[in-house]
């Protein structure tokens, strides 16, 4: 069980996180989703005993992150945002080093990292600095796992990694979950939210929603429309000026739109846009994704 109660951290006057509370059940994959600068890393550092909270309290496995920091440090695996590898050590040397400082050996816990490490083992003599992003990530994960932690904290493990490796990585996390490891993972990629058991959406230092991924989408209380026309630039401008707009933002090839009065008014909107001279106008209802939840939150006053 990881539990945070009213965690607050300021850096001077800058807000890191403010009044954050949540809990993660044992054996869960808990996602922390939010853009850069939302406070994800601050939160991770407090939970991994690297930062003292200004206010509030947090426990990892019933151990207090401030008082019992030494005990916690034996139970957790931590993969910081930048892959913390020694660039001038080889793949094998990195893993052996992290194993030994936790008083274990690669052989002893090989079964834990086997699936992941096997993929980079052919390159075990290569210096970590010469690995690709995906391989670095696998090595960093192996290093965080080699001492058989009960809790795994992964701070943006998929940032800067290609799409295939990202998919593989999430498969690995599921395997680890089956071994009984509790995983807390942060990511700026909204599409990865659906791969978690539960997610917390974090923005400007505070969490505004915690739910199962499906729950977050069903929480989205408005009708969402995707719009396209020949002149997307004018369309965006006109939507922003429309009297009933709640939010309107570019989403891929179309513009996502929600209206102020919970269920939208497609007919009067269509008329408004045709009046504005838009040609080839397409307007259809669509399913909200995690990103829509974020944009909705950001534009809400």
């Amino acid at each position, binding site marked *: 069980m990881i539990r945070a109660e009213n965690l607050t951290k300021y850096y001077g006057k800058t807000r890191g996180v403010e009044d954050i509370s949540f809990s993660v059940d044992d054996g869960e994959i808990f996602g922390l989703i939010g853009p850069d600068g939302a406070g994800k890393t601050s939160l991770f550092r407090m939970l991994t005993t690297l930062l*003292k909270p200004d206010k509030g309290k947090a426990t990892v496995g019933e151990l207090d992150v401030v008082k019992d920091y030494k005990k916690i440090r034996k139970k957790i695996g931590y993969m*910081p945002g930048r892959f*913390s590898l020694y660039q*001038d050590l080889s793949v094998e040397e990195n893993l052996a080093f992290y194993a030994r*400082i936790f008083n274990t050996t690669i052989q002893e816990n090989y079964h834990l990292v086997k699936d992941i490490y096997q993929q980079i083992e052919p390159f075990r003599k290569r210096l970590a600095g010469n690995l690709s992003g995906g391989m670095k990530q696998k090595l960093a994960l192996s290093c965080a796992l080699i001492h058989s932690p009960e809790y795994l904290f992964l701070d943006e493990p998929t940032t800067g990694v290609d799409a295939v490796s990202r998919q593989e990585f999430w498969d690995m996390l599921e395997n680890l979950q089956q071994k009984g490891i509790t995983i807390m993972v942060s990511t700026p990629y909204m599409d990865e939210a659906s791969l978690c058991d539960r997610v917390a959406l974090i923005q400007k230092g505070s969490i505004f929603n915690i739910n199962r991924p499906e729950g977050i989408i069903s929480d989205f209380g408005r009708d969402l429309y995707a719009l396209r026309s020949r002149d997307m630039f004018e369309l965006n401008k006109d939507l922003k000026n429309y009297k009933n707009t709640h939010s309107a933002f570019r989403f891929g090839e179309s513009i996502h739109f929600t209206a102020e009065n919970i269920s939208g008014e497609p007919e009067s909107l269509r008329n408004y846009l045709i009046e504005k001279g838009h040609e080839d106008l397409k307007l259809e209802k669509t399913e909200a994704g995690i990103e829509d939840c974020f944009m909705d939150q950001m534009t809400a006053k």
Partner: protein
Amino acid sequence: MKRFWSFVIKEFYHIFRDRKTLLILFGLPVTLILIFGYVIRSEIKDANIAIYDPSKDEITKDISNKLLASDYFNLVENVQNIQEIDDIFKKGVVREIIVFESDFARKLEQNGEASIQLIADASDANTANLVVNYTRAIIFDYMNELNRNNPNPLQILAEPRMVYNEEMKGAYMFVPGTMALILMLVSALMTSISIVREKEMGTMEVLLVSPLKPAQIILGKVTPYVTLSLINAVTIILLGYFVFGVPIHGSVFLLLAECMLFILLALSLGLLISTLTSSQRAAMFISLFSLMLPTILLSGFIFPVENMPEILQWLSVIVPPKYFIIIIKDIMLKGVGMSFVWKETLVLIGMTTIFILLSIRKFKIRLD
């Protein structure tokens, strides 16, 4: 313990895989000692000398001509009266006065030996040393020539005498000074940079989260540099001894023990710097400005402390290399033992203790 050694091994990997680090570690000491050695031992050319020759015979004339025929010496004055010597030196033009015995050739023939006194102005100790050595070499050459076909070898004794600074303070200073400089650089600069690098690369986060104790991290970081610094100290002493003939009159064991103490002091300073900064660049600048410059300027390495303005003399009291240089000079050049250098040693031990305690207190078990 296993944890600790794996940390040490890792540090050695870092050191041996980085060419720049290796260059600083091993190239720099050799380069510095050679530069300082040769700059201070620079060639002499047209050194002004005076000759006092009461005998004026074949042999003294031969020797004088041989000296003046080389490019090294330039005759300024023929001294007529031995009383004038002091006045000549006081004018500050003449570096050396060559004083022949009276009846030089006759004594050489009858007794098989005659002597020449080489009086040098040792207020500039290095030049005095050089001038005297060059003169002796030329006289020695001449003697060998005389003796080539002679079954009864003749002896010309050249006796150097230094005036104004008979102890030759300042000569050979470059070995203790360079040693202080290099040990400071290697130990303090390299340690602080290597710790700060972990912070910069983000690996410190993982080390902190691991069960490693702060003392293990610090000792693991420091141990390789202790070893390498000691190797450096030995290299410098050997280079000084074999290349520049700097003597080691005192106990080698005591010398190395004092080096070890100074290395520890420099390392603890490096640690302290690393706890105060979080970028390699800052660590480097702080090391250079707060350690290197005082070592060069205020320790008595190049500029004698006695000649400094009073404020700087006071400031030099807190510059650790000052004590180290005194100790090393005393052991190497004067051959004294612990009973003479215990005060300076105590100062160094005190400083080391303070710096170590401070840096352990300042070492952060967290990121903020």
